[in-house]
């Protein structure tokens, strides 16, 4: 069983009850099953139970590879059938015979597939409700997700027939399993087919041709086995645990489907861990019209009468039955009824926390979709923290990659998603809060500086309030929020790099800035006419343009333009300031702005501010370089963070723990050494310092053994003596009690009774000890003998002898 068995465990009764889940097989359904037959069936059931809760599958290869499973190690219940199971099989066979007689046209029932030990087992007994310790498995959706991750699908050798006992005269039906790819593609194909039909109707569509192409592709793929394959899935019945209506769960995709869904073509039979029902309803219209009242014997032919008492109004009765059984009393319950389902033969599923975290077999799972592939990994499996990758392809053959999305976990650089668009070459990295540079999003095509890129930041984590920085080869645009200088936008245009001839300016040769545009939000403390809204520095022209904010009741805003010129007038004096160096447009002309002095002062101030802006832009460029460098380092190192609560991965705590264990171990060794030397008293009788002779060695050994034997006997005698003494005492007291029974006071009586129970208790203990001693004494004796044989002091003599 190991292989595949997943057992379903029922944790919560409530759940189970509610979720009367059954596996159904359909003959026609598009989808089929996975691993070999026995497994399949088991899995099916398991899946059903999944509903109830959890199933675990051992990630080993499927049954088919029987060789890989060591059957001998499986428990006895796997390798043989109990009487009750044999009986059940007979009942099932009888049922099947009647069934095939009554319904000769229908596919034979899937009742008792072979398990991994080639033993036929009734399907219901492969289900074992189990409660798992993981809260995620308590609800169907996350549970189903886990099962779909945890199991890997293996196609059946024959997609139409599950393996059943070969010996049977009436060969059971077979169930086909399809490769996983087909699984998903089937589904999509159907959708495509539908689409095609729609498309045909809609002639207006321009994409007709393309559709045609698609049609062809799909036609080529049309499944000749459509409707013949076997598939099993889980049905959850409404009622318990607030399940409002019946629904299906597909175990491989963990998706739920309405019972009205078109993809379910029919149901042959249905089972849970208690009973087996055959569908007697017509499935010509798929499963849409099926009524899931399992108590109605006209619609659902049951196999065992006893288990589910319930004709009609199934839900309630089921509830009752199921309510009673907890995991523990599942077995007992069976005994009471005339013929109940035998308790399950599979072992309880155990999922280790590691396996649970790993989820997929070997921590990795690949799911192929049409034009897409989804890969999943367990956390920490990949050294770069990759946990999920979705690849979208352009073509059906999946050779041309369209885009890739990669999800990461536990990255120290807080990278959580990388989106790679292959057609444009654009890579977008998304970061969680906490990156050292407060990065939020980084979109780039190349890690080289001065290329197209967009960086977004968590602006509250930055001192300068930067939200976003966009770069192209010639420009850099920054967006700010919440700055005390009200700067909200800065755009820098760069010119061509001046080629420097000399090497002396070693490293940095920044691109010259041609134009800096800065925008400011309104500073409520200044009048609008003095609050600059936009400032443009045209650096090579030495021109500065200012645009002010608009007054509340105006539609035009003041503007000013400064043009710095360093010229000399006719007399050779330097021109400091002339009226044409400052062009003003003022909404409300102000006197002081006309004065050269104030213009001059404003210009000088702007000169300084220009310097400052250039410096800031330059620093931004540096920061980009720094971030790129940091990102490269981070990518290179891709360190993963480990929670301090993660004791397994946390190296420090692991080291500490190992050190502690080491210390404990040494301590233990010392204690062992310090134990008494059993040979010491005998060796002491011999003359010290001399080497043992053979005879002496033998003598020492014999003495030691006989001494030990004596001690064992003494001990037994001692226990025996005590027992006898206790017995005598008790007899005496009993006698006294019987003689004086009539005259005894209540106190005396109470005393006697307590004495009596204590004495009986002591005697029982002594008896047990004696028995135990008798059992163990020979073993101990043998153990000592063995020890003596191996004792380094005696070994050379004894060995020779032996």
């Amino acid at each position, binding site marked *: 069983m190991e292989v595949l068995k997943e057992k379903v465990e029922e944790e919560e009764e409530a759940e189970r009850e509610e979720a009367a889940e059954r596996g159904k097989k359909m003959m026609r359904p598009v989808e089929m099953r996975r691993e070999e037959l026995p497994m399949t069936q088991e899995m099916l059931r398991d899946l059903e139970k999944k509903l109830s809760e959890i199933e675990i599958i051992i990630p080993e290869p499927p049954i088919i590879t029987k060789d890989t499973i060591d059957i001998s190690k499986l428990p006895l219940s796997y390798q043989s059938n109990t009487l009750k199971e044999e009986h059940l099989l007979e009942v099932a066979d009888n049922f099947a015979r009647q069934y095939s007689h009554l319904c000769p046209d229908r596919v034979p029932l899937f009742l008792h597939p072979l398990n991994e030990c080639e033993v036929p087992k009734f399907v219901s007994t492969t289900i074992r409700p189990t409660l798992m310790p993981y809260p995620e498995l308590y609800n169907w959706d996350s549970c189903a997700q886990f099962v779909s991750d945890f199991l890997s699908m293996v196609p059946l050798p024959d997609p139409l027939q599950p393996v059943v006992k070969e010996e049977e005269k009436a060969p059971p039906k077979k169930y086909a399993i399809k490769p996983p790819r087909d699984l998903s593609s089937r589904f999509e194909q159907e959708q495509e087919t539908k689409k095609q039909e729609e498309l045909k109707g809609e002639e207006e569509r321009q994409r007709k041709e393309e559709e045609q192409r698609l049609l062809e592709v799909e036609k080529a793929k049309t499944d000749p086995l459509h409707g013949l394959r076997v598939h099993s899935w889980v049905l959850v019945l409404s009622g318990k645990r607030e399940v409002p209506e019946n629904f299906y769960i597909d175990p491989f995709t963990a998706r739920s489907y309405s019972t009205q869904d078109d993809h379910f073509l029919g149901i042959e039979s249905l089972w849970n861990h208690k009973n087996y029902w055959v569908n007697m309803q017509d499935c010509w219209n798929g499963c849409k019209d099926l009524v899931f009242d399992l108590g109605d014997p006209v619609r659902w032919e049951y196999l065992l009468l006893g288990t589910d008492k319930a004709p009609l109004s199934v839900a309630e009765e089921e509830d009752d039955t199921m309510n009673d059984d907890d995991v523990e009393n599942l077995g007992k319950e069976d005994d009471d009824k005339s013929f109940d389902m035998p308790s399950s033969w599979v072992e309880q599923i155990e999922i280790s926390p590691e396996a649970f975290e790993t989820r997929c077999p070997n921590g990795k799972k690949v799911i192929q979709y049409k034009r897409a592939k989804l890969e999943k990994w367990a956390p920490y499996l990949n050294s770069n923290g990759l946990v999920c990758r979705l690849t979208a392809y352009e073509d059906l053959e999946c050779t041309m990659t369209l885009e890739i999305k990669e999800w990461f976990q536990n990255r120290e650089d807080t990278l959580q998603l990388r989106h790679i668009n292959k057609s444009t070459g654009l890579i977008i990295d998304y970061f969680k809060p906490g990156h050292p540079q407060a990065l939020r999003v980084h979109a780039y095509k190349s890690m080289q500086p001065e290329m197209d890129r967009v960086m977004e930041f968590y602006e509250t984590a930055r001192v300068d309030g930067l939200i976003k920085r966009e770069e192209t080869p010639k420009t850099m645009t920054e967006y700010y929020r919440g700055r005390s200088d009200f700067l909200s936008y800065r755009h820098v245009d760069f010119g061509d790099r001046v080629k420097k001839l000399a090497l002396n300016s070693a490293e940095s040769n920044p691109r010259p800035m041609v134009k800096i545009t800065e925008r400011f939000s309104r500073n409520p403390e200044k009048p609008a006419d003095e609050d600059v809204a936009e400032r443009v520095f045209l650096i090579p022209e030495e021109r500065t343009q200012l645009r002010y904010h608009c007054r509340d*009741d105006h539609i035009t805003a003041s503007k000013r333009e400064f043009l710095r010129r360093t010229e000399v007038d006719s007399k050779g004096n330097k021109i*400091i*300031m002339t009226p044409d160096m400052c062009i003003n447009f003022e909404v409300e002309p102000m006197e*002081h702005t006309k004065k050269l002095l104030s213009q001059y*002062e404003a210009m000088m101030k702007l000169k300084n501010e220009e310097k400052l802006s250039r410096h800031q832009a330059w620093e931004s460029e540096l920061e980009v370089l720094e971030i790129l460098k940091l990102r490269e380092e981070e990518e290179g190192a891709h360190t993963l963070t480990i929670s301090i609560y993660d004791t397994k991965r946390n190296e420090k705590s692991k080291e500490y723990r190992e050190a502690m264990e080491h210390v404990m171990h040494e301590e233990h060794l010392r204690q062992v050494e310090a134990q008494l030397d059993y040979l010491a008293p005998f060796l002491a009788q011999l003359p010290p310092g001399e080497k043992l002779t053979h005879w002496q060695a033998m003598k020492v050994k014999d003495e030691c053994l006989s001494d030990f034997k004596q001690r064992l006997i003494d001990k037994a005698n001692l226990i025996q003596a005590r027992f006898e003494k206790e017995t005598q005492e008790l007899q005496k007291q009993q006698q006294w009690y019987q003689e004086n029974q009539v005259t005894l006071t209540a106190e005396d009586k109470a005393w006697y009774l307590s004495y009596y129970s204590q004495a009986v208790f002591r005697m029982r203990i002594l008896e047990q000890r004696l028995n135990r001693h008798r059992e163990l004494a020979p073993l101990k004796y043998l153990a000592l003998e063995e020890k003596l044989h191996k004792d380094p002091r005696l070994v050379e003599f004894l060995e020779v002898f032996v």
Partner: protein
Amino acid sequence: MHRLYNSVEPRVMDEDMLKLAVREQGPKEEAGQLARQEGILFKDVLSLRLDFQNILRIDSLWQFENLTKLQLDNNIIEKIEGLEHLVHLVWLDLSFNNIEAIEGLDTLVNLEDLSLFNNRISKIDSLDALVKLQVLSLGNNQIGNMMNVIYLRRFKDLRTLRLSGNPIAELDDYRMFICAHLPGLVYLDFQRIDDHMKELAESKHQYSMDELKHRENLIQAQLDEERAQQEELEKHKAAFVEHLNSPFLFDSMYAEDVEGNKLASLPGVSELLQAYKDKFVTICLNIFEYGLKQQEKRKLELDTFNECVQEAIQENQEQGKHRIAKFEEKHSLSLNAIRDESDLINIEVKILEYSEDITELFNVLMTLEMQLVEQLEETINMFERNIIDLVALFIENVQSLMAQCRDLENHHHEKLLEISINTLEKILKGELDEDLPDDLRALFVDKDTIVNAVGASHDIHLLKIDSREDELVSRTNSWCAHLVDTIHKNEIMRNRRRVREINQYIDHMQNELDSLECSEVID
């Protein structure tokens, strides 16, 4: 103080002295060159230093209206004066002078730092206007009374104080007293007041401080109450019904009514009067409440109107701004294109295009404005009609209530007349039992006299009622007229401003283009 100011000739602050100071202290280097070229206006000067000038009298400073910092230390000034116009002053230094009293600072509401160090001041006062005062230096003066410190409690922002060199600084309790009474103070005589010191001072002067605080609180509470009353009255006045919620009007009717008061002591009249008063006051109260209600209504009407108008204007402005923004975008491109263009013909074509753009922008903006004017005019007219209706309704109702008052008065008058005549008859017949006061008895001489007296009282009453009514009506009407007038005026102003703004902008654009054209031609 120590300087003998007769050793140097006292100087007068005149134009030349100020000019010199301004020039010396003005901008330097290149900016200075410019400043000399242009000249500096006194009103542009922000800071002025006039120390060691032997100035006796502060004068001629009225032009420095934007001055924020003025240094007049080390002169021989005896009186603080001539600073009334320097309302922007933040920093004033009058140390080392011969000032004897603090005065002339009542307009300097922005003053934060005042130095009167080394003068002859003996009393701290007249600083009430200096609400922003933070630093005060009064060292080396002649302040001898500790109580002066309490005066400083009103300056909530005062952080630094210097009082050393005064007689009070010699007192043992000097520091403690100041710390306790000025808890906001951080530095005293250039020493930081630490927390320990504060605690000590507080505990030491706790008793007197509590008392002081209590007194201050009482005064404050009284002030608050007065203010609240004043506000309430203002509100009532705005509703034109002030004092109508009390027997004020009734009392005023009798305030000047000599005969009426005399007659009040006639038997039976006091009951009559009481009933009359009750009814009268009730009607007044009705008027009052109705007035407040109507005021609310008018206010709501006005608020709604203002809001709508603002919205309309705002929206219109947004459209205008949008147009201009679009134009400017194109404008800079066009200008550049024209500059870069070398072909003359092309330039001309482009310039033409551009000037067409400008014309179009002008048309668009003006159309927008005209639209708005029309819309607003309609709205304003509607509002005008509504508010006039409201006011008319108010007046009408008040008048009808007032008429009730008059009816009451008439009724009262008749009763009073009746009683009076009866009394007269009784007196004439000698049947009157009670004694009447002499002045009252004097009225009961004959019928004419008493009828006249009663009539006079009646007339006075009616006059009072009429005048109150007239006052209410005329004030209400004038308020209404004024409001409507203001709205119209504002709208006209707004329109003119906008048109001017548009023209100014278009002119600017046109000028820019013209100058470009010129330069092109020259090129």
